[in-house]
């Protein structure tokens, strides 16, 4: 009984302390994408050579404070139809059912409720959904806060890679990786505006 009440008191103190800490922590800033000054690119091996593409349309929502990572969140939605490799025929092929299947899966999505500090910057840890397949993923990034024209802004960039077949991007003949590699590099340089 005494032990129980001691535990209860300790728990109450801990909860109060946690609450106080949350209240003291700096508020996170809510950022959205400045699409005109942002890019999300990918590269892939096609017929033995590196090729590049990008997604033209995406939405980013970032709640971030380097002083309050516990309350920081990242949410990215990519319109798969906006794929652009600079080649109409290739883009149409990428949009088709065996690859990105943009009609059935118009969006790819990354949501991270956990952001950790790393030696190089930060790591957003969450779930990536591509072509209807959701997997654990983490995206390393750097973040530089700035004040531009009196308004807070942020520059977020990073690089990662994923395996397209993990997400079923490549059905039928496209499952083969000899002509189109499984590894897809992703790099992004985003300008975010406080909202």
């Amino acid at each position, binding site marked *: 009984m005494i032990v129980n009440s001691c535990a209860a008191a300790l728990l109450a103190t801990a909860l109060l302390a946690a609450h106080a800490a949350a209240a003291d922590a700096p508020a996170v800033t809510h950022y959205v994408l400045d699409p005109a000054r942002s890019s999300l690119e990918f590269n892939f091996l096609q*017929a033995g050579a*590196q090729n590049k593409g990008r997604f033209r349309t995406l939405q980013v929502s970032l709640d971030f404070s380097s002083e309050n990572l516990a309350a920081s969140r990242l949410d990215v939605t990519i319109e798969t139809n906006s794929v652009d490799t600079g080649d109409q025929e290739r883009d149409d092929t990428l949009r088709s059912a065996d690859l990105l299947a943009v009609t059935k899966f118009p969006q790819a999505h990354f949501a991270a409720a956990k952001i950790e500090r790393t030696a190089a910057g930060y790591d957003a840890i969450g779930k990536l959904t591509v072509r209807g397949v959701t997997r654990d993923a983490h995206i390393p990034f750097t973040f530089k806060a700035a004040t531009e024209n009196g308004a807070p802004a942020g520059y977020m960039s990073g690089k990662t890679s994923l395996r397209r077949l993990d997400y079923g991007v490549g059905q039928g003949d*496209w499952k083969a990786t000899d002509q189109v590699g499984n590894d897809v590099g992703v790099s992004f340089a985003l300008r975010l505006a406080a909202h």
Partner: protein
Amino acid sequence: MPLRNTRHRWGVLSQLFHWLIVALVIVQVTLASLADDLPPGAKKLALLARHKSVGITILMLVILRLSWRSLNLTPLLPTTLKPYERLLARFTHAALYVLLFAMPLSGWTMSSARGFPVSWFGFFTLPDLVPKNKSLYAALLTTHEALAWVLAAVVALHVAAALKHHFMLRDDVLRRMLPFTTTRQGPRA
């Protein structure tokens, strides 16, 4: 069999270059026509990747072949040829060499203009010859295909001439490009 050419017969290395390129050109025509029949897709991509790699191989072989030719004697044309036949023979051979350069170069340039870098069997990537340019790509595609027909016509002339020399004129012109044959002039090879 002598490695080098003589005045009367092609050496082993020249014969090897000749027949290797013949075989690879046949491979090229096969790959291109198979790819032509396919809709865009992984199979077409694979065939065209192979076509580009083989094309670059031919380009490298033609460079080696011409270098070797320049370091060697060139077998003489038969003395029985009329002046216009001599001219025609020279023209045909020159055209074949020019086309063996023009085919891979137009293909490589076309791929660069399309924005697709050319890889040699995945071992290395060749530099782009021109920046990406849609209308240049379209023009080069037409050129590459037209040159293929010109090559087919010149090859037909070349083969017809070789067969005429062998079966009608009964001279050594074809035989001296064939391994394991005896020519009437010069040493056995």
